[in-house]
């Protein structure tokens, strides 16, 4: 037994040695070629959280690891809630979350020296109100009408409220089948936040991540479940990430200013730039209250804002350096472009990039 063990150990050592020798040369070669960083970054950064960010995080990891070949970034799409508790427990140095940290969650953070965090919007995506109606390809709807459709108050598509917003469109008398997420999700949270802001008189359920039990309608698991349900039923309507709505009818939303806006990256960016950071938070905590009643003609109000979070001061300096570099890349123009092309998100505007970069610059 002892012989086998020592043999195995010897093999592993030699394997490590042969693996490791080329790595520093390539990374130092790249560092000198780019001549930006003082010392090449190396090590492993463990991140995890929001499932909505999965595709974007994959793009960011790929981009960051290509530029820093000695760094490994892991992202565990465990969900926002599990991500935040994992961050508090120190298992993730960086977390992605669909909801901003609450004050009660910002205590005893294991990886940080203090309870100060750096929280920046990183993944902004328009949410499409998608529908399936034979013979109708586009519709204009306002917040109140969307709320009535989703709560079941409007039962048929030829309802006068819809007809009034769509002159010239021949609406069928098909029954409305509202489709919502059966799982708890940030998409539902942002969509219900929109309804509670834009249609407060109809939507009385607040901003919730789990669709209210009182309401009927079709429930489907995950974005793809909702897409499949809408596709399979004539008269179905629901909410999905805009990047996943291809092939479905997509609503042009009439915003609070009366403007007809399509779900686009530009429209989402416009809404976020008109929103204000939440009061009572630290200087580096850029959690936003999204203003979904903005009257700007380019503002698309149904957007999802998801954050990337790290410590302001890390206990472990090496982790801090990595987290800072990774988060800087995530909110950079390059990082945002990478996420936009692979995940269909809306790149942050230059003013937000500047604010987020400034906050991340304070990480140590």
């Amino acid at each position: 037994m002892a012989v086998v063990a020592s043999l195995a150990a010897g093999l592993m050592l030699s394997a490590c040695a042969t693996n490791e020798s080329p790595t520093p040369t390539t990374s130092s070669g790249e560092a000198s070629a780019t001549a930006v960083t003082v010392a090449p970054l190396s090590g492993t950064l463990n991140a995890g959280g929001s499932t909505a960010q999965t595709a974007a995080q994959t793009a960011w990891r790929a981009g960051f690891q290509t530029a820093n070949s000695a760094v490994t970034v892991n992202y565990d799409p465990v969900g926002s809630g599990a991500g935040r508790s994992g961050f508090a427990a120190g298992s993730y140095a960086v977390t992605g979350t669909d909801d901003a940290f609450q004050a009660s969650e910002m205590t005893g953070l294991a990886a940080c020296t203090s309870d100060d965090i750096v929280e920046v919007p990183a993944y902004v995506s328009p949410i499409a109100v998608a529908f399936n109606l034979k013979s109708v390809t586009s519709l204009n709807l306002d917040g109140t009408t969307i709320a009535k459709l989703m709560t079941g108050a409007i039962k048929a598509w030829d309802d006068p409220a819809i007809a009034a917003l769509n002159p010239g469109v021949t609406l069928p008398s098909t029954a409305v089948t509202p489709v919502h997420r059966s799982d708890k999700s940030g998409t539902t949270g942002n969509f219900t936040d929109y309804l509670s802001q834009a249609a407060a008189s109809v939507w009385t359920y607040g901003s919730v991540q789990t669709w209210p039990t009182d309401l009927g309608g079709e429930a489907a698991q995950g974005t793809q479940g909702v897409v499949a349900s809408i596709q399979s039923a004539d008269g179905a309507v629901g909410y999905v990430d805009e990047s996943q709505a291809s092939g479905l009818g997509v609503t042009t939303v009439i915003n609070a200013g009366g403007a007809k806006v399509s779900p686009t990256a530009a429209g989402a960016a416009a809404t976020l730039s008109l929103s204000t950071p939440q009061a009572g938070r630290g200087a580096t905590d850029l959690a936003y209250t999204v203003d979904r009643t903005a009257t700007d003609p380019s503002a698309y109000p149904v957007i999802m804002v998801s954050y990337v979070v790290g410590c302001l001061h890390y206990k472990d300096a090496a982790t801090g350096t990595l987290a800072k570099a990774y988060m800087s890349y995530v909110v950079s123009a390059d990082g945002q472009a990478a996420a936009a092309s692979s995940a269909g998100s809306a790149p942050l505007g230059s003013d937000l990039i500047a604010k987020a970069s400034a906050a991340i610059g304070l990480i140590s």
Partner: protein
Amino acid sequence: MPSARPHALITGDGVWRAVTWAAGAVTVVILGGVAAFLLIDGVPALRGGSGVWGLVWPLLFGSAWAAVWALLFAVPIGVGSALFVTMVAPRRLGGLLGGAIDLLAAVPSVVYGLWGIFVVAPAASVVYAWLSAHAGWFPLFAGTPSATGRTLLTASLVLAIMVVPLISSLSREVIALVPKTHIEASLALGATRWQAIRQAVLPQAKSGIIAGALLAMGRALGETMAVAMVLSSSLRVSVRLITSENPGTVAGFIAQNFPDASGLEVNSLLWLGLMLFLLTMVINTVARRVLTKGVSK
């Protein structure tokens, strides 16, 4: 006495005994560990006053309701196919068919889920519209029929196909145990094939068939992925079968809500898991009772 045996055999006996003891102990320890984990991490949900019982009852009802309907479809198919394979079909065809039924058990549940969403549900929605129009007065078919077909009845149909191999293979085993002479005697007395099956085969195979059905029920209660994907679930208690507002199931609810759960919500989900664990355990105990009764006969 042991000294009379060859030495190697005694050593083999000892090793064999140790291995089986260890295997038995491991299963008990793991089962106890799972139960303890669910209990310890689930209890805080009760103290939290988060209304966990408001989740438990609708979801346990949903799990049981879906499983009952799955069995109503699966038992006739399972037993019927077992009888066909063992008693009716030519030996060649029977062997092939038996293998094909067992293969149903090898299909991953996520595939059944996709099949349910893209094939069964759209096809069933046509039937549901008809049922609603012509039998809407019947409480089970009341309410607005689902346009997508992702209803409790559809979920039960998918579950039924998933548990048919359990019932079928167990039934085949017990039917094969019925002495040929009994069947031949019955036929010699002038019984038709159906009469022989009813008089000679089914009474003897009954306990095995029931045990198979109960095992299938345990499987149907715990099935997660296929149900989560197919069923349009809510927290309502409703016996309606063809609407969009169906009761969810425990396993499906846990799978759908765990990823974004935090704090007490996690405890609530674990408590739900414990409740399902207990329900399944009760059913498995019953199945075991019936099974051992059949063996001792």
